[in-house]
C-alpha cells in the first residue's frame, strides 16, 4: 500500500478514467497522488482482519429500507430530454465514429 505511483501509473489511470492529461498536468497529479497515497497509508496501522466492509450505512441496524416495487412506469419524456444533447436527431444521440480506420 506504500507503492510509489509513477508517471506511467498516472497515465494508465488517466486512460481508464478517460482523461487526457497534458504533461504538465501529469507531473502535478503525480506529486499530489503520491502525497495523498503516502498519507492514506496510515490505514495500514489498523488490523482489519475479519472486519466486514461497510459500503452503505443502511447496512447498520438503525436503518429501514423501503425499495419501490419493481414496476414499469412512465419516465421523463424523450422530447424533453433529447434537446439537452450536444448532437441528436431527436431519437438518438449522435457521436463521432466509434472505430478508427
Amino acid at each position, binding site marked *: *500500500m506504500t507503492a510509489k*505511483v509513477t508517471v506511467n*501509473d*498516472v497515465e494508465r*489511470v*488517466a486512460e*481508464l*478514467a*478517460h*482523461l*487526457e*492529461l497534458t504533461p504538465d*498536468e501529469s507531473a*502535478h*497529479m503525480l506529486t*499530489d*497522488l503520491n*502525497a*495523498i*497515497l503516502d*498519507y*492514506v*497509508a*496510515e*490505514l*495500514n496501522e*489498523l488490523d*482489519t482482519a475479519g*472486519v*466486514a*466492509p*461497510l*459500503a*452503505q*450505512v*443502511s447496512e*447498520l*441496524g*438503525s*436503518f*429501514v*429500507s*423501503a*425499495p*419501490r416495487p419493481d414496476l414499469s412506469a412512465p419516465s*421523463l*419524456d424523450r422530447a*424533453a*430530454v433529447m434537446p*439537452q*444533447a*450536444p*448532437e441528436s436527431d431527436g431519437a438518438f*444521440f449522435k*457521436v*463521432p*465514429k*466509434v*472505430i*478508427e480506420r
Partner: protein
Amino acid sequence: MRLASETNTVENFVQKPKTLAALRVEIAEGRTTAADLAAGYYQRIEKINPRLNVYLSLTKERALEQAAHIDALAAKGDPLPPLAGIPVGIKDVLVMKGAPATAASKILKGYRPPYDATAVTRLEAAGAVLLGKINCDEFAMGSSNENSAYGPVRNPVDTERVPGGSSGGSAAAVAANMAVATLGTDTGGSIRQPASFCGVVGVLPTYGRVSRYGLIAFASSLDRVGPFAGNVRDAATLLGVIAGHDAHDATSSPAPVEDYAAESDKPVEGLKIGVPDEYFAEGLDTEVRAAIQKGIDALQAAGCTVKRVSLPHTKYAIPTYYLVATAEASANLARFDGVRYGYRSPASDTLSAMYSHSRDEGFGAEVKRRILLGTYALSAGYYDAYYLKAQQVRRLLAEEFLRAFADVDAIVTPTSPMPAFKLGEKSGDPLAMYLADIYTVTASLAGLCGVTVPCGATSAGLPVGMQVLGAHFRESTAFRVARAVETAMNG
C-alpha cells in the same frame, strides 16, 4: 512594520435575515407581500453579488410566479403553507426544471435539466419562493469554494477570506441576507464547515433522511441534502419540509418525520452530552477551542450532563473518507462524457477522443485529481489495499460512534479546527485542504446527523461553529442542543 491587513478595514456584508415567524406574520397581515419580499431580495442580490459571487443564475420568472400565488392566498385569507413567500436559494448541484444546472463545472455548460429535485419540489409545495442557483465548489469537491469554474465565493464576514465549502455560496447567502434560507449538500462537511466559517446554522440530516433525487451525485453513500438558515428553529422547520421518504430515491428512509421546530423548543435539562477527546487534540486553533469550551459550559449550565468520550479511530477518518469518496466519485462522474448533456469538445474524430477531450477540457484540477485517485483505488491490484480497506475502517468508525451514542444523547465538537482562512492560503496544497475536514468527515462516514450552530467568534471577529452530532434519525435531539447553545451564546 505594519501589515496591510492591519491598516485596511475589513469589507463586511453581514446582515441577519428576519425569522420565518416574523416574515409569516408580515405576509399574513398584509404588511408585506411575497412579491415585494422577492423584489427586495433581488435588489440586494443585484447590488452585492458582483462582490460576493454567490448566485450563478437567477430564476426570477419562476420566483415571481410563486410569489403571486402566495399573495393570492394571503389576499383571500386562505391558510398559508409553512414557508409561504420565504425567499430560498438552491445550491447549483440540485436541479430545477429549465434553470441552468452547472455543478459549478464547465462540463455542464448549457445544461437545463427537464425535472426538479425532490427537495426543490417540496420547498415550493410548502410555499417557498426559489430565487436562483448558488455557487459552490465544482461537483461539491472542496472545502473553500475556490474550486468553482465560475470563480470563488467571498466570505461576507471578511471578503479576503473563503466562505468554506463546498456549499460556500449557500452559507454566504444566508450570512449576507441574500436569501432567508438556502439548500446545500454535505458529503464530507460541505454544509457544516461553511456554516461555521460564515456564522450561520447548517444541517447535516441523517443519511437517507432527505431524498437525493435531482442531486448531481458526488459520492452516493455519503451525499446529503440539507438546509442553511439564520437560526436553529428556522433550519429545523426547513428540514421538516424537505425530509421524508421518496419513491425516486431507494435509500430515502420511511422513518416518520418529526416536528423538528417544535422539538427544538424543548429544554435540554437532563440530556447527556459527549465531548470526544480526539476533537480537542493537537491542531485545534486556541481561540476556536476557547469558544467551543464556552458553549460546552453553557450546556452544563442549562442542566446537561457533560461527559468525556473517546473515539480513537478519528485519526483514520480523513484517509478513509478520501478513498471512499473519490472511488464513488470516479464512478459517478463517468457519466459526463459529452454524449447526453453539457459540454462536448468540438474537434474529435473518434468517440474515444471525444470522451477524453470533453472531460479534460470540462473538468477542473481538483475534480480530475479526485477522479484519478478514485480510479486508482478501484483499479486491479489496488482495490483490496485501498478501497476495501477503507470500507473496513468505515465500519470501525461507524460502530465506534454507535457505542458512544449508547451512553450519550449528543456529541459536541468544533466544526472546523480553524476559522475561515484566506483566499489562496490552502489552494496550492490539496492534502492540507483535506486535513481541514478532520472533524466533519467522521459523521459523514457513519451516516449521523449534525447541526453547526454559531458559538462565539475569534478576537478578529471570525465566527466559530459548534458541531452537534446526533445518532441516526435523532435530528430532534441535535436541534434541541444546538438551540440551547444558540440561546446561551448569541442571546
